[in-house]
């Protein structure tokens, strides 16, 4: 177990720069999650730490020791690959024994090796699979074996690359809870790579959001949730994604195209985006009493998502043709009905400086507006809407 530090880490893949100076410091025993879309450089980061990809600049420091020039087999890190990378010609037991047999990670007698493998297969519930070959395993079983090969050996740092991504949704949820239950991960410094925000929230002591080879924000799940650094982070967390309403701020008031006005900091001016998470919107039939942040609209689509219902609400106060997404647990909200969406002003995030209207294909190529704070009630006496 060790600390892990990345100092200005940069790397290329072929000739293409993939990482542009990552700085992060992972504490001893911390479970650190790297979250980002594909191509963001998550796997490259892990492989730089493992020494499988050469950094072009910066440093990887494990336990205070700079890893420059240290071969992968001398770094004492264990990694689970997204592809599992199980040796196809070896049984599960032999796959697990592989790190114990290299002689470089410690010496074990045959009996000690057997005991370690035993403990791991029992923990992961793959006792009965020990004599199977990888091709005879299901994806879930392969994934457990790959985890087993990590857990079976002592290591300073565990690196896990999308370990759950090839599992179906249900198995993924079960394994997620199981990872939490495994004590090994709470004792060993771990870097966990994923594109699934639920995994990140559920598992991470801290999360680093990676985009285009840069860390956009590092923080605890709550920090990222409550104060996303920009619209990219905001939309990376939560499904359905956060609603973003284009507006224009001036003199402490931001007004959307449809005339909805909220209070903002007086030093914010120009185009802004107001962000509201679908689950933060309370849905009420018809009109409600004033107060808070309120938008009226008509339910265009009501889609059942299990117990909750996802509403596409064509709004009156946002802008022409703009649709807001809201989630309600009330199964009786029907399509075509008029509803009011409301929330606290503190749940409305204000983003500025993106210089872009969010389109349906908003994909991160344009700039992402930075969060400048929350909305608040207007100080003047005008109504909330119109």
């Amino acid at each position, binding site marked *: 177990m060790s600390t892990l530090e990345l100092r200005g880490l940069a790397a290329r893949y072929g000739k293409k720069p993939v990482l542009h100076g990552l700085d992060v410091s992972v504490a001893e025993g911390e479970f650190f999650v790297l979250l980002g879309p594909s191509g963001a450089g998550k796997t490259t980061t892990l492989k730089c730490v493992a020494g499988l990809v050469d950094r072009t600049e910066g440093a990887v420091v494990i336990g205070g020791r700079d890893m420059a020039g240290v071969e992968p087999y001398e770094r004492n890190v264990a990694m689970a690959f997204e592809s599992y990378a199980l040796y*196809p010609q070896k049984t599960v037991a032999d796959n697990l024994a592989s790190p114990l047999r*290299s002689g470089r990670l410690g010496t074990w007698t045959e009996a000690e090796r057997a005991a370690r493998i035993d403990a791991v297969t029992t923990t992961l519930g793959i006792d009965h699979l020990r004599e199977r070959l990888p091709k005879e395993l299901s994806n879930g079983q392969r994934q457990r074996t790959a985890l087993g090969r990590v857990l079976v050996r002592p290591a300073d740092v565990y690196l896990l690359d999308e370990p759950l991504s090839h599992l179906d949704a249900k198995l993924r949820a079960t394994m997620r809870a199981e990872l939490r239950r495994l004590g090994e991960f709470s004792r060993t410094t771990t870097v966990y790579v994923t594109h699934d925000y639920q995994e990140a929230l559920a598992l991470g002591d801290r999360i680093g959001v990676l985009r285009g080879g840069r860390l956009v924000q590092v923080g605890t799940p709550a920090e990222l949730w409550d104060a996303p650094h920009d619209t990219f982070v905001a939309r990376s967390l939560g499904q359905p994604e956060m609603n973003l309403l284009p507006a224009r701020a001036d003199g402490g008031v931001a007004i959307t195209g449809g005339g909805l006005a909220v209070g903002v900091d007086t030093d914010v001016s120009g185009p802004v985006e107001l962000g509201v998470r679908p689950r933060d919107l309370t849905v009420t039939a018809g009109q409600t009493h004033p107060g808070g942040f309120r938008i009226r609209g008509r339910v265009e689509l009501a889609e059942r998502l299990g117990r909750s219902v996802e509403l596409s609400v064509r709004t009156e106060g946002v802008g022409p043709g703009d649709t807001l997404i809201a989630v309600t647990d009330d199964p009786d909200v029907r399509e075509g009905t008029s509803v009011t969406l409301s929330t606290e002003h503190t749940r409305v995030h204000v983003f500025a400086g993106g210089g872009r209207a969010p389109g349906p294909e908003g994909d991160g190529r344009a700039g992402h507006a930075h969060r400048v704070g929350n909305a608040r009630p207007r100080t003047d006496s005008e109504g909330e809407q119109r």
Partner: protein
Amino acid sequence: MATRERRPGSRRFSPAAAGADLLLVLWFAFSLFPILWMILLSLKTQAEQTSTYFRFTPTLENYTTVLSSEGERITSVDFTGALFTSLVTSLGAVALSLAIGVPAAYAAGRWAYRGSGDVMFTILSFRFAPELMVIVPLFIIYNQLGLFDTAFGTIWVLQLVTLPLIVWILRSYFQDLPEELEQAALLDGYTRTRAFLTVALPLVRPGIAASALLAFIFAWNNYVFPLILTGSENPTVTVAVTRFLGGGGQAYYNLTAAAALLAALPPLLVALSIQRYLVHGLSFGAVKS
């Protein structure tokens, strides 16, 4: 409803399909005829060898002649000795190529370094450059170095045939092998050499087998190099066969046919026994390189 299988829009009989089948049969007969002719020829007596009749008294005499000292009297080359020489030189050439080619293919498949493309192209160029282009200088060099008409000399020159094959086929195998397997081995505490030996090498065994057998066949069948670079001491079987066509006086077509068929047997047996393997190995190399 009928329970009969129906394929919507499937065709049943059409004249076009029948015509295509007929063409295929004709082509088949055309391509196999020379082989049939060779077999017939090898069973004919000296007197009948130039006749074009299909009716004759078959005899195995030609085969015994070729394999006995009588054959050696005619050609002044020991045919069974040549078979043995071919076996030794072909196997030797393949072994040497594997020793050099497997690591080379691994390096070529795993790492791109400055000039790696050029190196691979040079190796391949051995294959498509006509052998006659280099044969004169090689002849002079072999004479100077005392390699002329030696088994080792033949093994050496056959590298031009076997090495490119093995390197190019195996490179595709190594490229298809996920690099992460070796990376996993590195993190398990194995050095690069051990990762190669314990992880990568066992997994390309089918490729090694396919390319080695293919290289063996090519080495065995090579004619031009041994023709010029061997004499009467260590000729290969391909050279020995042509001796029956005679240099001085009579041409023994029937003996030539028998010798050629005997010479074709080892590669044929190898090819048949591993046919599926071989096709897989070749197409494997073909789709990715």
